[in-house]
């Protein structure tokens, strides 16, 4: 049995789980930057691919049976380039960290934290204090949180937001059983009914045909002008032009953006996350796609990946199955 760990994240994963891998497994690591010259030999007789991608122009890999993604999203695997019958599994472990980020961002936006702490730190300004009787800030108690994509992350967000006294709504592609934290789960087709009710909208959905470009200019206009938008899913779920214009013109209250429409690459390592200067907007919290990037996430994810490789080698049923090619 042979496994190929391909790319930087997979190489780190290998280092983290080496001791947990089955004794008979022959592992090859091709880290970052990927040495194309090593790929033909590494791919030709490999059973298990551990990576975050597989490209159409990569050499033949006829024996792939398990493709184990080191990420939750599998959109960088070209399924057409994978052999028929191979199963694609993903990995999680990030729900905890991302749910913490979503609640943190929701609190920081409602409490106008960046504005208040920035003015106090830089200018010693007490303008927002009791002492000065400035303008009070908001709180999340009694507000309505709408979660778009009610999967693992969405449920963890709801569990944490409920004790704050938030009313929680959700929308999901497939029917979900309602748990006690959520007042109502809308089908994604009825998203337009949910949006006008929300004081915070958290995008927690996977990227797929139904969610690409889901949050359009029209849907942003359905939101309250004071509502906050949080995106920890994928940039492409939201229309880039429309969101920038809405934030710039204060047609929504603000946003926290962790995922972007474009990323740095070898040709442009300093590339910004968008064609628009979101980083200049005072009502927008911007982070470099690191909401889930915690030591706890890494450990939980490595454990899942090692577990699944062990299951495959023993012939046991797999976890986190996404699709069979």
């Amino acid at each position, binding site marked *: 049995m042979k496994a190929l760990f391909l790319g930087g994240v997979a190489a780190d994963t290998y280092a983290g789980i080496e001791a947990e891998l089955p004794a008979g497994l022959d592992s090859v690591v091709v880290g970052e930057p990927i040495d194309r010259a090593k790929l033909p030999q590494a791919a030709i007789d490999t059973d298990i691919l551990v990576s975050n991608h597989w490209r159409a122009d990569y050499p033949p890999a006829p024996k792939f049976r398990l493709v184990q993604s080191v990420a939750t999203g599998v959109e960088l695997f070209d399924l057409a380039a994978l052999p028929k019958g191979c199963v694609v599994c993903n990995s999680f472990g990030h729900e*905890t960290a991302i749910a913490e980020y979503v609640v943190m961002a929701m609190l920081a936006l409602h409490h106008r934290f960046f504005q208040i702490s920035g003015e106090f730190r830089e200018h010693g300004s007490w303008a927002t204090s009791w002492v000065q009787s400035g303008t009070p*800030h908001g709180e999340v108690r009694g507000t309505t949180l709408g979660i778009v994509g009610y999967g693992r992350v969405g449920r963890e967000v709801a569990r944490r937001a409920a*004790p*704050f006294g938030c009313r929680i709504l959700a929308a999901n592609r497939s029917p979900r059983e309602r748990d006690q934290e959520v007042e109502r789960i809308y089908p994604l087709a009825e998203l337009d009914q949910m949006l006008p009710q929300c004081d915070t909208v958290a995008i927690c959905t996977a990227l797929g045909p139904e969610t690409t470009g889901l949050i359009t200019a029209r849907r942003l206009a359905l939101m309250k002008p004071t509502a906050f938008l949080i995106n920890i899913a994928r940039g492409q779920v939201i229309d880039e032009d429309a969101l920038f214009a809405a934030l710039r013109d204060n047609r929504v209250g603000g946003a926290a953006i962790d995922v972007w429409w474009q990323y*740095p690459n070898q040709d442009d390592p300093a590339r910004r996350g968008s064609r628009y200067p979101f980083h200049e907007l005072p009502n927008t919290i911007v982070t470099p796609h*690191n909401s889930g990037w915690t030591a706890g996430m*890494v450990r939980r994810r490595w454990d899942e990946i090692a577990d699944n490789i062990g299951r495959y080698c023993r012939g046991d049923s797999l976890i986190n199955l996404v699709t069979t090619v």
Partner: protein
Amino acid sequence: MKTLFLGGLAARVAPRIQARMTEKIEPSVLAELTDMQRLIPALAEAEIVVGHIWNKDFPEAPRLKLLQAATAGVDMIDLPSLPRGIALCNVYGHEPAIAEYVLMTMLALNFRLLDTVTDFRAGSWAAHQPAGGSPHGEIFGKTLGIVGYGRIGRDVAKRAASFGCKVIAANRSPVADQGDAVEIYLLAELDRMLPQCDALLVAAGLAPETQGLIDARRLALMKPTALLINIGRAAIVDEEALYTALKGNKLGGAALDVWWRHWSPAHPDERPSRYPFHELTNVLMTPHCSGFTDGTADRRWGDLAANLDRFVRGEPLNNIVMRT
């Protein structure tokens, strides 16, 4: 019933309190506490005073029966100089807002939010995983210790528990309602609690037992990665010791909403401490506004008005701090 709204805060909120009352009072308003010419006659006839300050040199208030503080803290009321036979009441309503602030800052410190956002705004992807950034922390599984376990502490504990935090607490008096805290220490046993904490929340009132409670020795009992969040009163924490610990990375970070120096009209731009906390990147700082939300104002002035109504009707009062 002659009711005096005394001091800047009470004077500002007097119309909102009266608007919520059902009973009739005879209100008067005096914002300036040092205006003795007006203060002497006003206190001579007041039966109710609404305010949060009572100075040692105040004139006689022979008809006073109720001093209704417009704040939760009564540390600006000189208790020994209060007239005999009155009830001192306070107000709350800020607990949910402050609990939100505590969770927000605890999350933000673990996430290194200020640094991350500042760097990313400047164009750096350093915190991004493929860029080799180091991971940040979670609050899941962390131990939160709360000093002063009252209403705010319980509201914090309820929210922190849903994040998978272990909540422990220390309190001056025995705690009747433990809420979501799993262990309660006496304040005298604080030294046993401190080494366990990944975050320490100071939510106590200022009193002789809490003044200077968190000193250099106790800060040294904490983990070098631990966070300190103070929404109680600044004087509970030793100013110099905290600054020194944070600057020397003997603590992981702090979120401070209460300060050793406060704003005053004479010194509007004065920094809130003798030490430059604002130069430390592991410190989140806010100008005593953690509880200052629309929601707090609604709850607080509603509760205060209801207590005045109760007094006018001769019904039992809420939130009695003490009777003199």
